[in-house]
């Protein structure tokens, strides 16, 4: 089998939907800008790229049609580079990495652009025209359960207190703010030029958030619940991109890759507790890598909700010290389709920065799924 490498990572700033600096930027333009930014950092012949695999969770309207192909054209890639769009909701662009890895392993290409994007400003969460199937709803109502409700279910099931969730969110903001101050975030950010400004910084981080401030918020989803807007990831606009390639390709092009893909997995779980999805996926991936969880040094666990992230950490037996060192989605934001590429790229970059060996990137997925990727530093 060919070695699959994460060769490079870049992303746009992540900003609040509707009120943020990227709200008026089309998602296809945003993704194309990040692809250009990524390629500008590399000295490779774009014609050697096999495919652009793009993840997007609500692929309609401005992010409709075959967005993967359109982003390639927008980014002026050679027309010989193909393009495909993939949807696994929040796991979409991590799925793009898995597909690239599979193709490389198969010998069906050497270099892939794995991109993710979501404009939650310009395409609403359920899409413009949600038309759920009444028969499925009658048979299995949880198929259409709201994400907030699943977070409440996990908080109840795992007895995760409001205070614990609030503390987790405070830490996420604190770590993101510290990373921002240290320049760790701008290192990965491709500045985006909009009609009104050059957007260079993340817009969702609240460095001054405190536990008392969060404690004052009302429950966001159920009147007697414990999950608030402060312990949920915000609606966000953003895009991320990775170059995933074979070791031969990396060597030929004198790239300095970040990490090797050791194992990948996806797993289903009950939709009403979709947030626990990373547990089953991670266990599968660890088994495939022949590793124990204790061998993992760095974890990027997507924070859809604090309750969900805490539940996964408890179940997997991982401590906060290893998780989301530069902050997670509660602070940074969660542009659904873009998050998978971001956390894979982040985990790979952290292996380099921290000089560690193994990293895990994993996330939960609406509808009841988990997805996981295990990386090893090269």
């Amino acid at each position: 089998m060919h070695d699959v490498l994460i060769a490079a990572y870049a992303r746009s700033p992540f900003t609040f939907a509707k009120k943020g600096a990227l709200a008026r930027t089309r998602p296809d333009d945003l993704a194309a800008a990040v692809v250009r930014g990524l390629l500008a950092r590399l000295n490779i012949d774009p014609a050697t790229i096999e495919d652009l695999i793009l993840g997007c969770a609500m692929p309609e309207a401005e992010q409709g049609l075959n967005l993967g192909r359109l982003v390639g054209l927008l980014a002026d890639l050679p027309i010989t580079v193909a393009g495909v769009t993939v949807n696994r909701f929040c796991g979409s662009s991590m799925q793009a990495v898995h597909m690239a890895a599979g193709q490389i392993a198969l010998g069906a290409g050497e270099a892939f652009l794995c991109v993710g994007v979501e404009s939650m400003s310009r395409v609403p969460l359920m899409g413009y025209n949600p038309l759920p199937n009444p028969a499925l709803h009658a048979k299995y109502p949880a198929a259409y359960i709201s994400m907030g409700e699943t977070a409440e279910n996990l908080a109840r099931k795992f007895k995760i207190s409001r205070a614990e969730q609030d503390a987790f969110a405070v830490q996420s903001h604190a770590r993101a703010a510290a990373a921002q101050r240290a320049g760790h975030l701008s290192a990965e950010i491709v500045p985006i030029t909009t009609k009104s400004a050059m957007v260079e910084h993340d817009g969702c981080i609240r460095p001054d958030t405190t536990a008392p401030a969060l404690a004052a918020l009302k429950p966001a989803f159920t009147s007697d619940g414990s999950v608030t807007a402060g312990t949920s990831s915000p609606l966000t606009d953003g895009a991320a991109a990775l170059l995933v390639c074979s070791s031969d390709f990396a060597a030929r092009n004198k790239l300095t890759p970040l990490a090797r893909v050791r194992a990948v997995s996806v797993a289903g779980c009950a939709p009403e507790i979709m947030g626990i999805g990373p547990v089953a996926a991670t266990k599968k991936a660890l088994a495939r890598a022949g590793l124990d969880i204790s061998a993992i040094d760095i974890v990027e666990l997507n924070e859809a909700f604090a309750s969900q992230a805490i539940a996964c950490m408890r179940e997997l037996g991982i401590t906060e010290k290893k998780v989301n060192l530069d902050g997670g989605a509660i602070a940074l934001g969660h542009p659904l389709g873009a998050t998978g590429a971001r956390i894979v790229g982040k985990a790979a970059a952290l292996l380099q920065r921290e000089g560690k060996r193994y990293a895990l990137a994993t996330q939960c997925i609406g509808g009841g799924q988990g997805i996981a990727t295990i990386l090893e530093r090269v």
Partner: protein
Amino acid sequence: MSEIRKLAVVGAGVMGAGIAAQIANAGYPVRLLDIVPPGATERNAIAAGAIARMAKTEPAPLMSAHAAKLITPGNTEDDLESLADCDWIIEAVIEDLPIKQALYRRLAAVRKSTAAISSNTSTIPLAALVKDMPADFARHFMITHFFNPPRYMRLLELVGGSATDPALLETIAAFADRALGKSIVRCKDSPGFIANRLGVYWMQMGVLAALDLGLSVEEADAVMGRPVGIPKTGIFGLIDLVGLDLMPHINASLAATLPQSDPFHAANRDVPLIGRMIREGLTGRKGKGGFYRLNRAQGARVKEAIDLATGTYRPEISVTLPAVATRDLGALMSLPGKLGAYARRVLTHTLAYAAMLVPEAAEDITAIDEAMRLGYNWKQGPFELIDRLGLAATRAAIEQEGLSLPPLLAGAKGPFYRSQHGIQQYLGRDGVYHAIQRPAGVLLLADIKRHGKPLAKNSAAALWDIGDGVVCLEFTSKMNALDQGTVAMIEQSVARVREEFKALVIYNEGANFSVGANLGLALFAANMAAWSEIEKTLAAGQRAMLALKYAPFPVVAAPAGMALGGGCEILLHSDAIQAHAETYAGLVECGVGLVPGWGGTKEMLARWQGAAKAPQGPMPALAQVFEMISTARVAKSAAEAREMRILREGDGITMNRDRLLADAKARALALAVHYTPPAELVFTLPGTSGKLALMLAAEGFYRQGLATQHDLRVAEALAGILSGGETDLLDTCEEANLLTLEREAFMRLIRTTPTLARIEHTLETGKPLRN
């Protein structure tokens, strides 16, 4: 006549900002300037702060979010030169002559030669304001005295000086009338002009008489409120509303400017209690309490009033007057004891003072009556009150009270107003009756009704010929609630207009266009389990709406005030709407546990599905309409009704209430040229999948505690209509299908106990029940 296009207001206090808001409400860009606060980094902070505050003020000074954007904040140090292109600059700064004159000198230097400058002063005479100012400035200067709040108070007192250019005065009057919606009362340059001069005297007399005669505030207000036709707050309630702290300032300014012979001086006695209350912060509703307060101590909500003798609060005492005294002014003044004495003292002094103001403050009596009606919300002005009491009885009462009879009253040879051949006339100072002239473009149904008989009439509505082939359908029931009589008259109007006329206007001069269906009748029928009757009535209403919509002549609805439920559905089925700016429209049926039953849902859906710029596909329009109707949203202005698409693009908004009927009639006549009825509506709807999508959203609100179980049931009924029942995306749904769905949903809901409980509660309290 030059045109007013660009305006500015200098002074961003409550009045200045409110005036700027009304200018913006009219759709005109306006600059709002104030001083640079000492040590400020944000130099426009005062004006910008005033605009921001107005967005949160209730009742809202602004009619829409768009209006706020038309106001540009600035400051008098950096931005005065930018007023060079303004056609009208309104000064609303502090009541300080040197400060005003200093500003005028600077404005004189920058204003363009044709620009009008006006002051919103309420106390400083025009002669003093223009003293020593350049002649050209004085020629372009006048006083425009707005009342607070400028959006809602219709009165504008207009004062020209001896030097003021009469043509410019006309230009400003016309703009204030048509664009700003104000009724203009011309005043002489005399202290306090008209409304405050008489109003302050009246309030002061009311306070003193209550103290002297030993009445409680409740007794005084019970006498002077409803029975006289003055706002039900009465005098003490009104002072609470205005602010006690304002009284000494206004009194002092009138005392300083009125001649010593004026009766005001006798009434301007210091009231120690008021001084003490102001010092203690008891300045009225804006303060910690006033003559009345709501005591929230210990979690209770106790209505209290101040004891005028002891100055302490005690629980409010309700006062009931004999029924006859609430209708008959003579009987009110003949009440035994202190109540009658109070009515006599306050009314005789007030009416005698009013009679003194002609010609000192106003050219004729109509100006005084108009000023009190519009500036103080009196139902009748003082001369109308004199006619109501009777001239002889008024004279006798004034003399018995020991007052001398003013010449106007002594010399009057008959009532102050009379109707001659259907023309309303007033008694002039020359002793001759003159017709009351309506400004051009003002058409009042009240005037038409004085002329003659209706074309048709029943218990709930009437038809009037308003000339040029146009018929007016007037609702006449209590609060203009709609019932079978209304439906019958709608059908009759369609038959009648088709045969003999060109167009129909639906309009009335009640406080509200219509508050919707008569819920009392619906509840009665439901309690009798007269289900088939209810359904028949519903079907008749639906037929009447279709008859209006597809009539072979244009129908223009001209609402003012509330147009709720069925009232809103009438707007939705008209060819065009000409709305007064103060129109509050919405489909509120879900609030009482029902769904719109007269086709309101389908009409709103058609408006949203046809909307340009909206996201396409089967769901976006449904979701919008679902949200509006399920939350019983009511537009807080005609501008908001346009945002809600109750008003369509071609529909008009009239700022001046008095011009509404004429505007609606003109619109109807324009539509009547080569009129063809609209095509029938055909919908493509998503069926049960769409309904499920709407309900998933509604259930989220339920989990958040924002909707009740019964709200969900009502929402489900609504979602069923909006999604077209069992229809499929590939099929079309006709209007009749949706009307059937509406009827079925309505009938399902009205049989439920929580819906009936809601109706009963709303009838009893006027408020929604959340069950």
